[in-house]
Structures are given as structure tokens and as C-alpha cells.
């Protein structure tokens, strides 16, 4: 194109056309996004805001939705011993989820990695994950029942028949459910960690062992730092799951009298749908939401920092 031809081109018109196109593009984009926006806002985000609002009312048994209660429900929560128990049990779940899936998963992963049995072991430990949480709860409910498998196995090792009510006793109920829960979830942690381990290069490990580093040194100084991002993903996934465990507890503790104190999730459900204390239950949900959001925020911050460290 020669210079005088170029001069004849109307740049302003070009730009205007570009802008119009972009604007039309924006509307097209919104047309594509509208079903998602509509459904997400209407069925997910609106309930969350409504829930926060309910927690500031005095709504109970179809009365008091229009009465402003301020922080009343939160004060009631703080002074309620059931809330305290539910909160501390939730923290047991969280601390267990913080440590055990990653430790057990890493242990098994390190043991089977590169061995002939790796594929078999992977399938075996992952298998419980394929069952539904509700089905796992039903199955383990019978494992733990007073005349169930576990008691009959324990009876073999003692003089008289053992009949422990694992799911009825204050001291054992949470830990019994945690064991069933770990049985189901450790496999996922293991598979994810094996994926992370597969990405660790062999050369530095071989170089280190040639230089006389012990296995433990190799693990702590080479493997660990390299799989740290995977470990972080596993830890965060399990911690968030630990805060929100519901199905396993709900199914397995169905006959436990203090069921509602077993976790914040169950406590909220019982207060709302069995006692109709809507405002009070909303406040529990808000507390749970605040904790979960802070953990998510921590995850984003940590991940960004680790990514920056890696670069």
C-alpha cells in the first residue's frame, strides 16, 4: 500500500468500528454468561446473603423474621455449651485432617513408589473413595455396632466377649467416625502425592546418594521441598473437607444422643431442621462460613508465596 493510499484511510472510522465491535462483543459475552450468572446469583449467592441477614433476626418457628435481633444469636452461641463442644469437635476434625491424610498418604506413597506393587496398592487404597460417603457410613455403622465385626474381632483377644458401643460413647464416637473417614480419604491424598512425587527429578537424588547422603537426608532436603506445593494442595483440600464433614457423622451417629455436638455442620442442621431455630442456626452457618473463608484466603496467600519462592 503506497503512502498516499494510506493517508486516504479513515482511522477514526476504523477505531469507531473497533469500539462498536468490542461493545457488541461484550453483549455477546454477557449473553453467553447470563444463564450461569442467573443461576449462581439466584441459587447460591442470594441464599448466602439472606442467611447472613437471618442470623441478625429473631426468627424461630415461623415467627420473628421481621424482628431485628442484632448480635443476639451470636451472644447466645458464645454462651452455649453445645456450641463450645461442637466447635471443639470441629477442631478435632480439622487438626486430624491437617495431619493424618498427608502423613499417612505420604508414608504409603513413599513406600509403594517405584515398587512392583505400586499400581495394585494405588487401586486398593483408592478403592474406598469410589463408594459414596453415605454408603461408607452405613457400612461402618455395622462394623462398629455392639454385636458387630470390630467387637467380635476384639473378643478373640480377650477372655470374655467384648461389646463396646463405639458410636454411643462420648469418648469414642468422634474418633470412630474419623477412622472410617480416613479409610475413605487417605487414598485420594496418596494418589495426589504420587502424582507430585512422579514430577520429582531423579538426578539430584542420585547425585546426593552418590555423595553419601542418607535416605532420610535425601527425603528431607530434596524430595520434601520439591513436593511442598502438592503437600499444600492436599492439606488445604483435607482441611476444608474436615471443616465441612457432614455425611459420615450424620449417618454413623444417628443413634448417638449428643449427635448435634459432634460438629458445627451437624449442629447447624439439627438446630434448623429439627428445632426450627432458624436465626440461631443461621448464626452457626455464618461462623462456619467465616472460618472456611479465612482458610481459603490463607490458601491463596500461601500458594502465591510458594509460587513466588519457586520462581
Amino acid at each position, binding site marked *: 500500500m503506497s503512502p498516499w493510499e494510506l493517508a486516504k484511510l479513515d482511522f477514526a472510522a476504523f477505531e469507531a468500528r473497533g469500539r462498536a465491535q468490542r461493545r457488541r462483543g461484550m453483549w455477546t459475552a454477557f449473553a453467553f454468561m447470563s444463564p450461569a450468572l442467573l443461576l449462581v446469583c439466584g441459587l447460591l449467592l442470594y441464599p448466602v446473603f439472606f442467611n447472613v441477614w437471618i442470623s441478625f433476626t429473631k426468627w424461630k418457628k415461623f415467627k420473628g423474621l421481621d424482628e431485628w435481633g442484632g448480635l443476639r444469636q451470636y451472644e447466645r452461641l458464645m454462651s452455649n455449651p453445645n456450641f463450645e463442644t461442637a466447635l471443639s469437635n470441629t477442631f478435632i476434625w480439622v487438626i486430624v485432617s491437617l495431619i493424618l491424610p498427608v502423613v499417612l498418604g505420604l508414608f504409603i506413597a513413599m513406600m509403594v513408589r517405584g515398587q512392583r506393587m505400586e499400581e495394585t496398592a494405588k487401586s486398593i487404597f483408592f478403592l474406598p473413595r*469410589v463408594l459414596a460417603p453415605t454408603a461408607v457410613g*452405613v457400612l461402618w455403622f455395622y462394623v462398629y455396632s455392639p454385636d458387630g465385626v470390630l467387637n467380635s474381632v476384639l473378643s478373640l483377644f480377650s477372655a470374655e466377649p467384648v461389646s463396646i458401643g463405639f458410636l454411643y460413647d462420648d469418648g469414642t464416637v468422634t474418633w470412630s467416625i474419623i477412622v472410617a473417614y480416613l479409610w475413605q480419604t487417605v487414598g485420594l491424598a496418596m494418589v495426589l502425592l504420587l502424582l507430585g512425587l512422579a514430577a520429582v527429578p531423579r538426578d539430584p537424588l542420585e547425585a546426593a546418594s552418590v555423595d553419601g547422603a542418607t535416605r532420610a537426608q535425601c527425603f528431607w532436603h530434596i524430595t520434601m521441598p520439591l513436593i511442598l506445593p502438592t503437600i499444600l494442595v492436599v492439606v488445604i483440600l483435607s482441611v476444608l473437607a474436615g471443616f465441612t464433614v457432614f455425611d459420615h457423622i450424620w449417618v454413623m451417629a444417628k443413634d448417638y444422643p449428643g449427635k448435634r455436638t459432634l460438629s458445627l455442620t451437624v449442629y447447624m442442621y439439627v438446630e434448623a431442621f429439627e428445632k426450627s431455630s432458624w436465626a440461631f442456626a443461621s448464626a452457626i452457618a455464618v461462623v462456619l*462460613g467465616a472460618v472456611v473463608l479465612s482458610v481459603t484466603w490463607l490458601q491463596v496467600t500461601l500458594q502465591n508465596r510458594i509460587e513466588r519462592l519457586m520462581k
Partner: protein
Amino acid sequence: MAVDLTTLDLDAMAKVAARGERQSRPVFALMAFLSLLWLAPFYFLAVSIMKSPEEYAQKHPLALPDGILPVFANVAESWTVAKMGFGMFNSLLYGTVGASAAVLIATMAAHGLARFDFRGRTLWFMLIFAGTVFPFQMYLIPLFFSYLKFGLLDTRLGMIIFYTAICIPFPVLVMRTYLSQMSREMDEAARMDGCSEWRLFWSIVLPNCRGPFVALFLLQFTWIWNDLIFSTVLTQSAEIRSVMTTLQVFQGAYGDVSQTVTIAASLVASLPTVILFFALRKHFMQGLQVSAK
């Protein structure tokens, strides 16, 4: 016997020997023990569903059954008495329609977010993604009363709408990344040729997302199938309940009467996802990798 040394694959032998060396006996023993421990509940499941209720009551829980015939009676009873048939049908409906609608809507949204230029794209994405960061307990009460008000409570339509909505945000995250890596030149080329925006999406973009589409569908289908809490809150009658609620209600009501039937029901309830998992392991593992990122 003379051995022709040249036919021996020495390299392969060395490899086998080296592998054997790495596999120490205590490690193998420990892992074998752990594996058996992990499989023990499955053994209990297998022997229990093969016993008739009388046999189950008399024998040691871990004893082998007399035959496998009672398994049919147990499954049949879980189908009729526990109404697992209804539950299975409903969950199949919710899972198929909900998950496919959700992934389709999410792909549309991701197409809008990743393949058009406009201001505030990240903000709109965050708005959609915000749908999954809250714990489910925050949805329950408002949903229950909104559904009550609009007559959606205890209806199949209500269940499908909700499952569709809750399965949208995560696929949007995955599809947005996927679509923003896909070349945009073909969009321009198609537009030049007078292709409409919808046809561009439907016949060019969508067929190119088949891989992640299937993986995401399986992930969301499994989620819907396994869901207990929303179905418990949003349904009341046995005809509308999902399979997991049916199972849970059955265990609560009759569990102590016939454990073999309840255990059979729990296996029946898990069967579709188990079969899907084994048939489509590759896609599931893809989904797993996707969800870990």
C-alpha cells in the same frame, strides 16, 4: 542343559534384579498388611450381602456364607422395601440432567469470559466462582424457604435446578483456563465467513472441549449422585428423594431389623459410580488432576 547365552536379555535381567533389590521385605510385608486392613471392610461387605438375615444373625460377622444365593433376595428386598428403585431413578435423572446442563452452561460462561475482550472480566469470573467458596450450611435455610415459597420444595424440577446451579462454578474455573489457551484465530475466521455467534460456540468451540467436558461431567455427576444434605433438606417424599437420602432414611427406619438388606442397599447405591469409575478410570484421573490444581 546348555544355555545359549546370546539369547538371554541381560539388560532386562539386570533391571529385574535391581527392582527386586529395591523392594525390601519389611516394606512389602507392612504394605501387604496395610492393604489387607484396607480391604477388610470390603470383605465384610461381600460376606454380609451373601447371607440371609437368619444366617447373618447366627454366624460370626466375618464367617463365610453358605452360598451366594441370598444376595439376590437382599438386593431385591432393598429395591422393594427400601424403595431404592425410586432413589436410583431420581439420582440418575438429577445427575445426568443436572451435570450436563451445568457443564454446558459453564462452558458457555467460560466462552464468554475467555474469548471476548471487555472490562472487568476477572470480576465477573470471581462473582461466578464465589458460588463455591461458602460452606453448604449457608445455603440450606434460605433455599428451603425460597423453595417453599415458589412451590419447588419436594419437586424433581427444584432438585434439578439446584443441582445445576451448584455444579456451575467449578467447571467455569476449569473451562476458562482451557478456552483461554485455545487459539482465537478460528473464531475470527468463522466470523469473517458469516458464522453466527451461537453457531460459532455450538459447532466450533464446544466440540473442541470434549475432553474436559467429559471429565467435568463425570466429576459433577458423581458429586450429585453422592450428595446427601441437599436432597435431605429439599425433598420429603420417597418418590422425589435421591438415592443417598433413600439409603439414609432406610437405615434409620429399618436398619436394625435387616442389616443384610441395608448393607446390600448401600452397595447398590454405590454401584453406578463404582462402575463409572472402573469403566472410565482415565477420565476420572484426569478429573482428579484437574481438581487438584
